Each structure stands twice: as C-alpha cells, then as structure tokens.
C-alpha cells in the first residue's frame, strides 16, 4: 500500500467559534472519520488505508491534538452537535460517516438526531450500549501497560503501534507530558463514557435511517462482539461484518479488511 501523508489544519466551527484540528488526505468520495477515546494514532494505519480510496477528513475532538475548547462540551448532545458542526464546516458531499469506538457512539447519535444529514454510516466497534451480562471493560482504571492487550488481538504488534515514535516512561518530563495528554483525552472521553458508556443511545437507535455497516473484531476484549449483534438488531436494515484476528482496534489491526468491507457495502 502506498504511504499516504495526512495533512492537518485548524478550522473554526460555526456558530460555536471552536477551533479544532482536522487531519485530511486522499481523493475520491468523501469520508468523515471520528476517532475513539485514544485519538488518532501516529501514522494511523486505518486512516492511511481509507485515504487510498476516499477523501478522508478526520476532525479531532476538543482535548485531542491541537483542538481545544473542551470546557464547552459536557454531555452527549454537546458532543453530537459539535461533530455535526464539524461535518458542516468541512462541506463534505454525502460522506460516509465512519466512527470507531467512542467515535462510533457519536456517529450513531448524529445519525439518530440528524436523520437526513447522515445517510451512510459505518460503526467500527462502537461504544454506547450496555449489556449487564457482558460489561464493557472499565478503560479509565487501566494502566498504560494494560492497554495493548485490551485493544489488540496481537498485543505485541499493538504495543509497537501505540508507542511508535514515543518516549521513555522513566523520563519524568516525558511521563508528565504523557499524563497531561492522557488526562486531556480520557478526561474528555469520560464525559460520555464514564463510568458506564450508556447515554441513552439504545432508545434512539431505531430512528437511524442511514445505510449502516457495523464492523467488529472477533477478538475484541474491550467491547465484546456480542455488542455487534445488539447494534445490528437495534438499527433497522444494518449489516454486521466480523473481522477475524482483530481486537477492539479493528481498523488499526486489519486496515485492509475494514477498507474492503466499507468499499463492498457503500
């Protein structure tokens, strides 16, 4: 796969006036990508794969990267409207809205609220539902070294992806920077995911009329694949694709499989 260079720029949203960062690359049909609680990876393999076939725009939520204004977003409706504002500002043409994990939760809310604005929806292991018999792992209490095994089927390869270009945890300055970045991101994510990632999406999913593809890693240890079935049942006419040898970071672990599924469906 040819390497794709993501370019990033700052945009100002209307009417909130919030300044956020958006990563962009590729040519083709428009695709809006919404990241999960961890934000974008350095050299994100999924964004690179998607950009070979689509014009990808990937806005970062406040608290992630150079996007700020996190104090202005508190609850699910704030996140949803903010992301709709970002989509409007990017002037995308009938985009496929792809959301991973927390981003999938936001994408599904957008589709439930702005029914006609989101016509093509792709949810990659989305958060947003809760099944008592299959509790979602409490990501907030996990220590950094525990994350690769929760996010990836191949924890060793995942660890390399996560720390690519990173620093040394024993260096106090790096550690401080890591803690600040982590607190900003997960502090923000906690507003819609803590302590239980259910903000009422279940009672709104039946409103979704978008053509919907759901993708789940068969080895997802964070949000078990049984949630894929729950989303499929809740969204009328949706399709569920399970990807073998992939964990929660299904797109980062199996970018080609996810790209193929999206191309085949839309």
């Amino acid at each position: 796969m040819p390497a794709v260079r993501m370019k990033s720029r700052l945009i100002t949203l209307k009417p909130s006036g919030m300044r956020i960062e958006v990563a962009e690359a590729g040519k083709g049909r428009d695709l809006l990508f919404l990241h999960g609680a961890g934000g974008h990876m350095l050299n994100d393999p999924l964004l690179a794969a998607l950009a070979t076939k689509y014009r990808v725009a990937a806005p970062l939520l406040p608290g992630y990267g150079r996007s700020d204004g996190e104090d202005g977003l508190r609850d699910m409706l704030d996140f949803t409207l903010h992301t709709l504002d970002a989509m409007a500002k990017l002037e995308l043409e009938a985009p496929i809205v792809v959301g991973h994990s927390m981003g999938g939760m936001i994408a599904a809310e957008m589709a439930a609220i702005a029914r006609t604005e989101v016509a093509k929806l792709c949810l990659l292991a989305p958060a947003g539902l809760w099944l008592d018999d299959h509790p979602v792992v409490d990501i907030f209490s996990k220590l950094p070294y525990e994350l690769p095994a929760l996010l990836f089927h191949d924890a060793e390869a995942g660890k390399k992806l996560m720390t690519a270009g990173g620093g040394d945890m024993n260096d106090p300055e790096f550690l401080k920077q890591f803690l600040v970045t982590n607190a900003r991101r997960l502090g923000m994510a906690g507003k819609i995911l803590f302590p239980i990632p259910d903000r009422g999406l279940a009672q709104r999913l039946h409103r979704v009329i978008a053509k919907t593809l759901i993708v789940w890693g068969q080895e997802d240890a964070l949000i078990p694949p049984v949630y894929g079935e729950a989303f499929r049942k809740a969204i009328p006419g949706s399709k569920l694709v399970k990807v073998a040898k992939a964990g929660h970071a299904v797109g980062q672990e199996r970018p080609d499989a996810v790209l193929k599924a999206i191309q085949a469906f839309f």
Partner: protein
Amino acid sequence: MKFTWFHLMPWPYMPDDFRQKHRSVWVDLPNRMYEPERGHSVYHRYLDQLEFAESVGFDGIGVNEHHANAYGLMPSPNIMAATLTRRTSKAALVVLGNSIALYNPPLRVAEEFAMLDVLSGGRLVAGFPVGTSMDTNYAYGTIPALTREKYAEAHELIRKAWAADEPFAFNGRYTKLRYVNCWPKPIQRPAPPIFIPGGGSVETYDFCLDNTYSYSYLSYSGYLRAKLLMEGYWKRVAERKADESPYRAGFAQVICVADTDSEAERLYGPHVSYFYNRCLHVYPGFADAPGYRTIKTIQTGALSQFTQSGRDYPNMTWKDLTENRYVVAGSPETVRQQMEELIRSLRVGNIFCLLHVGDMPDDKVRHSTKLFAEKVMPHLRNLWPEWNNHDDRFWIHPMNERVELKVAAE
C-alpha cells in the same frame, strides 16, 4: 495551636497476605471481608477513642468520608459526628468532611451540617473535600472531568442556603431547585468554620483565600515532603496579600508516643506497618481517574500521594518511616522536637493528629494519646504567640448556654 484527634476508622482485620491476595484496599475489595458483628465493636471502640480524646484535652475530634474501602469505614461521617454530639461537650467536631459533589441535591449537606451544628451547640467545623478519585469517581460514579465544576456549584448552593433567611430558587447546571429552604440553619453565622482538604491542586489555594477557608493538607508522607507544597500555598498567600495567619493551614500527621524511642518502635511498629502496607494499598489505576486532576495541576507536577509514593511503602522499615518523618514517633521529647519542626516549617495552626494507626489496639491508642496530650501538646500550645493560639476566623464559636442532656443509661 489547635490539635484535632482524627480517626480514619480503618478495618483492622485485613489478613497478613492482604497485599498478595488483593490489588486494592479501595473500590473493588470484596466486602465479604467485612464482618458486621465485629464491625459493631470496631465502631464503638473508635467512637470511645474520639470521646477519650476530648477528655484528655484535644481541641477537636475529627472524622471523614470514604466509600467502598477498608481504609476508612465512614461512608457517612455525619452519622459518627451525630453520636459524638451527645457524648462530648467541648471539643470541635471536625467533619473533614462531606464530598459535596456527590450529593443530589447537595443541599443535603447544608441540612446535615446544620443539624450537627445545632445538635452540638455550635461546635461544627465543616470540611468540603472534592474527595479522592477512588471515592468520587470510581465508587460514586461522578464524571472525573466534571467533578470540580459540580463541586463549585454545590459549594455555591450550600453557602447560599445557609445565608438565606427566605426560600430562593437555584438554577444550577447540575442542581435545579425551585425552593431552597434550609431547615434547620447552623448556629454559627454566617457559616461554621470551613476547612478544605487539598492535595496540591493549585486552584484550591485560591479557593481557600477567596472564601477565608483553612487549607488542610492530608498527607501520609510526612512534613519533610510536604514542605514544597505548603511553600507553594504560602507563596500564594503572600501574592494575594492576605495575612499570614498560621490558622489558614493545617496538616495531618501520623504520631506515635511512648516512654522511649525504642519502646515506640516495639509498641507501634506493627501497626504502622499495617497502615502503610494494607490501608494505603491502592491500585494505581484507581488513584487518579483521567480528568479528575486539572491539567494545570498535573503540569505543576503535584501528583497524588497514592500514585507518587505509595509503591515504596512495602520496602520501608520503621527506621525509614521515622527518620524520614513519614511518622513522628518516639519519646515525648523526640515527638515534641519533631512536631515543633513540623509546625514551624509548614507554618500550620491546625494539626490533625493520627494517633490511632492501622490495627492499633485500644490500650496502645490511649497510651499514645495520653502521652501526647500530657507531655507533648502543652509545649506546643504557644508556638504562634503573635496569634495568641487562636484565630477567630478558623475555629468554632459555640453557644454559651447549652441544654443539659439526660442520657437514659446514666
């Protein structure tokens, strides 16, 4: 100086292999370990000790709030303080405090604190902690990044509720009340003295100065390591051009007094070890939920005592703990010297004395407490002569004539 005898009320029956068998004393420790019938005697022994502390001359007796843990068994410190209102008559009841962001509506705290102030005849010191991340976020489910905003709103509501003489409407983001009407109201006007437990959040310094609240640093790592943090506080006091009353600040200290230094180790060593190795055994993932601390605070490098130094405790000996002043222990003269150094170096007017430590049995608690009260405290009383051992803004104002109690059993 004001000395408050403070009880954490830990569960004293954690087994020897506790650290190996359990990852945390807080949040997910199975409560099958709690034995209610043993708990009955534990509670009453602890309450007896608080009452004893008043009888030997402590200025205050203190309780606090924690949840889902074996470290401190007071989910409701107000219940404990209520029992103490009946059996004590002089000491300040230092409730340090109620985690006001956790209550819905937070008016509940205004009401219960008012009840305590009225019951005790104006002896309440009210504490408003944010609460640890273990309590506030993991045990009580408050969203970490919204905790402080919720706290600020709850504080505003409580102060308004105490100040008002008529019902009013409160339209907060988190609490909406058409009729705020606090019955009863506290005896102490406009409010009982208020102490704010802080752990190095820089915003808290200003909050205390803005409202004339006393800043209380509750640390278990001793006064040597507290110096930097308290210097930050006093620097802020100077910047704000506030007066430098030592009663603007308080410090918690683990203290063990015996007849000699070596006797102290023999008597208290095992219980100190129980405290540092079992009571403070917190899983680091629960110590600091992302978003709980502000970015500014993380950037200044003030980390939670549970994340920062907790991991060293298993390897620390009695010698390490006492020489580095995590614990102030020894003969009355040793303890006096170290306490004086603590009080002067941190510039504090309030000491929260932790004289019950870990699984310490009652006779040792009373022995240590009595020695401190009789042989140490009198020598420390007047370390701030320019303030006459008192600052009206930061201590209780009991009513003059209180009703005589008729306790049925007596």
